[in-house]
């Protein structure tokens, strides 16, 4: 069983980063990673020998994240992850790049979940196009066209950053 810890351990920080970027909520994202790791441990022996551990784990996590995002959207159509506080995601302001960091994350939020996931897997997690295709369960050609479209949309959202974000929807009683 030790090989599991050795193979999976170094991948936990990237898995957290991907979950956090998709859900924008620290606790929910960590819950998801925990679910993912538990599944990985229990299904370890169902893994095919030639499976790439990294894309296998990202695929488990991605499917959990998508289920959660979709059921959240169904249940409460407007109160989604954009309510999560930026503090959960961004390091404290300390450098001149803070504005840009906030901007790019806010712009990312405006993209559809399909576009966000392809950008994050390729640009941030450095998965190859083939690995990304395996995680998303689509052909490589679809990865390429989604990626091009996602970058175009992110550029548009960044150019458009003066427009306010969607209104916050959750009534805060706290």
């Amino acid at each position, binding site marked *: *069983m030790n090989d*599991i*810890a050795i193979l*999976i*351990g170094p991948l*936990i*920080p*990237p898995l*957290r*980063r991907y979950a*956090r*970027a998709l859900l924008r*909520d*620290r*606790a*929910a994202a*960590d819950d998801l*990673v*925990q679910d993912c*790791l*538990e599944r990985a*441990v*229990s299904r370890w022996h169902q893994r095919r020998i030639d499976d790439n551990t990294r894309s296998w784990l990202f695929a488990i996590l991605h499917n959990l994240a998508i289920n*959660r995002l979709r*059921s*959240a959207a169904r*249940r*409460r159509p407007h*109160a989604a992850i954009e*309510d*999560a506080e930026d503090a959960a*995601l*961004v*390091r404290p302001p300390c450098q001149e*790049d803070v504005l*840009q*960091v*906030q*901007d*790019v*994350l806010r712009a*990312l939020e405006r993209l559809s979940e399909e576009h966000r996931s392809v*950008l*994050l897997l*390729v*640009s*941030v997690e450095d998965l*190859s*196009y083939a690995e990304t295709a395996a995680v998303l369960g689509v052909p490589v050609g679809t990865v*390429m066209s989604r*990626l*091009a479209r996602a*970058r175009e949309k*992110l*550029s548009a959202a*960044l150019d458009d950053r003066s427009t306010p974000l969607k209104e916050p929807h*959750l*009534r805060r*009683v*706290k």
Partner: protein
Amino acid sequence: MTDDRPITEDDLQAYVDRALEAGRAAAVEDYLAAHPDVANRIRGYAEQRGALRSALAPVAEEPLPPELNIARMIEARRRPVFATWRAAAAAVVLLTMGGAVGWVLRDESAPAAGGIAALAREAENSYAVYGQDRVRPVELRSDASDELVHWISQRLDHPIAVPDLSSSGYRFMGGRLVATPHGPAGLLMYDDDHGTRLVMLMRPMEADRDAPMSQHIADGIAGFTWAENGFGYSLVGPAAPDVLHPLADEVRRQIRA
């Protein structure tokens, strides 16, 4: 050496991702030098990529919380699962004992302190401590709910069950035993996948052994507290009372069932 196949959009994307082999990358660079508008767009994409990476890099540097300790997870799987029939048998024994203890206490306990008002405060305090905890809100997670039910039932001398609020959109997270001025209490926690958590606290009641459901609100934390047959329940959370009320009714209905 460069190759002279026509440049495709895929090449440009792969150039941004530094996924091209050297010859093809050189061909893309030649192309970009000759097409400033495309070059401008691709430069923008490269900046996006850099900004995303630096925005998200700190997340991967954070220390891992204990729940994400893979070695512990593997270890936990090796431990035998608590047999459900044993928990059920224990619950039957506790039910009998709990009834006897309750009977003895019935006439001798002095009322006043420890009633549902106290229970409501205890639930609010537990919410403030555990409901806000991002690291270890519960001691036993929902996947160990048999063990949790057994533990709380044993310590409270009263069989408990975990109400199911999933039809109202609240997922059971797990629970723990907490200390109150009136002895141990069982805490169950729920969340709605949007970060809103509810805490349910329950304990045996010496005062207010039967009390109708009452509503309370303090510092934005609403709650509903009641007692039946010597056992008290309080459901609290940062939700409006009209949202929480049907949930409390549902909990009570399930407990009575």
